[in-house]
């Protein structure tokens, strides 16, 4: 080897700093406005901190957690609503995504247009989605009632977003509209990595469309499906735009997910400590679910 003189050594040391300088601004920003607030949530969760009742504020230990888990009936109700919400939105989005991405991967005329048109709702915000679908669901001048009345399926207009029977399905459909393009996009990207020659040899061997799909396409997409469902699951778990704008969690808390409940407690009821404890519970549940999901998926992979 060669001996380093001090001059070179200094230069070498300086060089070692360079990558950290590049990362510094982003790390500071994320530390101050992402990680610090996250940490403070854990801190607040141990306090009674209610702007409406300042006289009762103070250290409360695990009291918030005990109250939530033992006394709060609404918490368990929202837990169930959340399960229905995440499962309902993500599973349907995934299924539509699988179907449509396979259609859009075929060679056809106007493919570019059809792809762009399918991706379109991806660019639409939750609040606009809510507006558009509210106009569809409207009892008096909505498109859905107009069509159903004209076809003679119903006799009288239905108030889709305020009736207890239909409200949940209504917001799930609106959310699916906005969310399925995400799956189409990532699945299409993954489909493009499957070499055409595999499909050709399948055709030569006389395999039909369905068996090709189940034996070639689906196994290839597995990784993408796993990561896609995790990302989307977390996203739907957190996302309350559509719920907040269409129903506000009502009627009778039928559409109050955990995230919605958290916001209502923290902002509307000013109950910061309680909301913080809810947040901690929510994130813990989320992390455990993701862990098990990945474990199960990995396990089944080893089994194959």
């Amino acid at each position, binding site marked *: 080897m060669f001996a380093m003189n001090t001059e070179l050594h200094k230069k070498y040391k300086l060089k070692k700093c360079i990558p950290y300088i590049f990362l510094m601004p982003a790390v500071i*920003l994320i530390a101050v406005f992402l990680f610090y*607030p996250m940490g403070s949530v854990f801190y607040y969760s141990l306090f009674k901190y209610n702007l409406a009742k300042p006289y009762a504020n103070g250290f409360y230990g695990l009291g918030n957690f005990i109250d939530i888990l033992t006394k709060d009936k609404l918490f368990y109700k929202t837990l169930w609503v959340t399960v229905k919400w995440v499962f309902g939105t993500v599973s349907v989005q995934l299924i539509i995504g699988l179907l449509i991405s396979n259609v859009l991967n075929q060679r056809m005329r106007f493919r570019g247009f059809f792809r762009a048109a399918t991706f*379109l709702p991806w660019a639409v915000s939750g609040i606009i989605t809510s507006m558009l679908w509210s106009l569809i669901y409207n009892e008096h001048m909505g498109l859905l009632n107009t069509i159903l009345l004209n076809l003679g399926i119903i006799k009288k207009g239905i108030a889709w977003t305020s009736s207890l029977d239909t409200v949940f399905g209504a917001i799930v459909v609106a959310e699916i509209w906005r969310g399925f393009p995400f799956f189409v996009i990532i699945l299409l990207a993954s489909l493009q990595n499957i070499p055409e020659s595999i499909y050709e040899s399948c055709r030569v061997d006389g395999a039909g469309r369905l068996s090709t799909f189940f034996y070639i396409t689906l196994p290839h997409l597995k990784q993408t499906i796993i990561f896609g469902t995790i990302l989307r699951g977390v996203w739907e778990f957190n996302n309350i735009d559509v719920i907040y704008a269409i129903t506000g969690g009502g009627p009778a808390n039928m559409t109050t997910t955990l995230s919605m409940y958290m916001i209502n407690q923290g902002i509307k009821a000013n109950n910061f400590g309680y909301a913080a404890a809810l947040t901690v519970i929510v994130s813990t549940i989320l992390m455990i679910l993701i862990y098990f999901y990945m474990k199960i998926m990995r396990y089944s992979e080893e089994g194959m």
Partner: protein
Amino acid sequence: MVKTRKLLENIFFRHIPLLITMLFVFMPIYWAMVISFKHEKDIMKKPVQLLPNPATFENYQFVWSKTGFSRYFFNTILVSGLSALAVVIFAVLVAYGLSRFRFKGKRSFMMIFLATQLIPYNMLIIPLFLIYKNMGIIGSLTSLIITYTTVFLPFNAVLMKSFVDGIPIEMEEAAMIDGCNRMEVIFKIVLPILAPGLVAIGSFAFLSSWNEYIFPVMFINNKDNFVVSVGLNFLIGQNVLMYGPLAAGSIIALSVPILIFAYIQKFLVQGLSAGAVKG
């Protein structure tokens, strides 16, 4: 025989699914457009008209000039533009650092950036509210710009890294041998090649900021600082529900994302998957 089978397959596996998808995607947009062009008295008229007859622009004029919507519109452009700019600058720095150097903690940095994707970011609302209150910027557009930049940076930085990875390092090495220093290499070689990526990521960030709803609805109380999403929600809260102006406002608010989308949709398939899936 083979031909009919092929035709049937095409109908079932191609035409019908495509037709249903197109109807599903365009139905809500079509309906909002129809209502936005109807006269107020025609909207509630029975039977409901499927096309505006006669059509009118009065809803657009009303919502733009009478409800403060134009102000919300420019507020949103300002906030989204500055957030996008900040995200692009920070993301280039991060992406270049991660792509071109080997250093201690690199893996952890990547992990941290990816892990932020799993943060339930509603949990940030209350603590950020308190932080901004202490800083004295709660309710200002600045508080939104800081929030958006922070929340959208990690994903876009990872995305940007995949763009930088695509630039052959040999070009930079050659320039360095010719006597360029690091800064010259970045400004004269990397950034020009990266231009499409910069625009794509800027558009991603702009779109995300434009569409954000929960943060502004929680942080902004002052009507002067409303952004479009909050303004629309405020319109619903009025005593008299004005469907026409509401639909017109939605179409105006929708037009900007659709224009951006038209540009970035060709990056979507490679982009989203590179950032979101491969990591």
